[in-house]
């Protein structure tokens, strides 16, 4: 009976082993969670976005990893496009003075009467969202801001998410990397 009794040293040894085991399990757990986080990306929800312009200035990447993406299936292909033209333009031409985009990142081309195609030049787009706001105000809302995952460095704490006044940024599973509004597919177009 007496032999079964543990002395203080054995007790401490057991405690130490138990603590070490728990620590290892804990670390494994944390690593597992962290490895899962790798499957998540920052993305902007266009239904919450207010096009405040901060995506252009807050991103750690220059120019911003947020870009305007055109959801062509939704577009009205309007002659007077609210995302392309400044308000109250006199002439619906491609003149720089008529364009809303501060960097001239939207290319307009004639398709057939009365349709015009609008394309975003990724290299010029700074993600300010002016065109998105104009498109939403006057059209179907086919221009939308999205984080371009080719450019995003996926910071642990996204600088734009911190500055976003409408909480439009969140981490999304990698399988749903793009969150277009009003369009069934979440694939990048």
């Amino acid at each position, binding site marked *: 009976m007496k032999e079964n009794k543990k002395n203080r040293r054995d007790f401490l040894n057991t405690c130490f082993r138990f603590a070490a085991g728990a620590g290892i399990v804990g670390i494994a757990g944390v690593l597992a969670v962290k490895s899962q986080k790798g499957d998540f990306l920052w993305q902007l929800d266009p239904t919450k976005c207010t*096009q*405040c*312009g*901060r995506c*252009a*200035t807050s991103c750690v990447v220059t120019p911003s990893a947020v870009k305007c993406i055109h959801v062509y299936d939704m*577009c*009205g*292909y*309007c*002659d*007077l*496009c*609210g995302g392309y*033209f400044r*308000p*109250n*333009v006199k002439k*619906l031409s491609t003149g720089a003075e008529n364009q*809303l985009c*501060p960097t001239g990142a939207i290319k307009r081309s004639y398709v057939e*009467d*009365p*349709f015009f195609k609008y394309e975003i030049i990724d290299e010029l787009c*700074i993600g*300010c*969202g*002016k065109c998105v*706001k*104009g498109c*939403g*105000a*006057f*059209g*179907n809302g086919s221009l939308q801001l999205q984080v371009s995952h080719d450019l995003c460095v996926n910071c642990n704490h996204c600088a734009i998410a911190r*500055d976003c*006044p409408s909480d439009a940024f969140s981490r999304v599973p990698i399988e749903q990397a793009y969150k277009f509004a009003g369009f069934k597919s979440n694939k990048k177009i």
Partner: protein
Amino acid sequence: MKNKLILWLSVILLLVVVAFMAKDLFVTTDRPQENIYEYDLKELRKVDSSKISHKEVKQIKIQANELHGIAIDDKDQIYVSTDENILVLDSEGKQINSLKVRGEARCLTVAENGNILVGLGNRVDIRKPDGSLRNSFVVAGEKAFITSLAIDGDNVYVADAGQKIVHHYNIDGEKINEIGGKNPEAGIKGFVIPSPYFDLMIGRQAELWVVNPGRHAFEAYNSRGEQISSWERTSMSLDGFSGCCNPANIAMLSDGSFVTAEKGLERVKIHLPSGDFKSVVAAPELFEEGTVGIDLAVDSQDRILVLDPVQKMIRIFEAK
């Protein structure tokens, strides 16, 4: 003495540092509001008060999940279509009847004899004034989607936004003609409808007025389907229409002026029979931003009834 002074100064310095740290940690300062890239649309939503010709005199709240369309009969009874029924109100807004419908009643109109025509997806139901079903017919075509109806005697006109055409039926549902199809020889350019807003109505001389929303145009047709008139106003300013599918809904005053409701920049305006801008009935500030589907009707006193589907009410406007 000197050591004591240094000690006190150190304590004060430490307190200052702690205070700064506490401020940084616990006090959030307002973010700078200025942003060089912000596109401020507030200015576009403002309307010069001298251009507003009407005042809102009444609001009638409607109990329904969704409001889709409004119509008025020759006794000034008001009909509102919802996702479940047709509500019939007297001219003061008191409910006098509720007709159950099969499906979402996206649009409706009332004939001179009191028959009620209801558009439900690709189906037109014609109900007698007591609400019983007179007859019903389906618009053929996989993409058929009815957005507006008009009736002149036995002629029923159906705006089909899905197939971008106006169907001409008789009251018994027999197809007579298709109106507005692209026909370069006849000078008809065809309807451009990027989103499901496609309205029509009967004019003062029984002509059919159809909105060509993608072109910001109004087109008039006779019962043979020939285009007899048109006007077009494309502009971001008050004098015209912009974006996809505007005006979204229309009605007509007794002098032949057009009442128009727009989406995007929500506003109700009046355009003269020539198409020129006349005045504003309701400025964008009266509507919640993003409101779509503002439907219109005009009663015998030229009061303009505006169906506000977001605030779920009928807003009645009278000339100032």
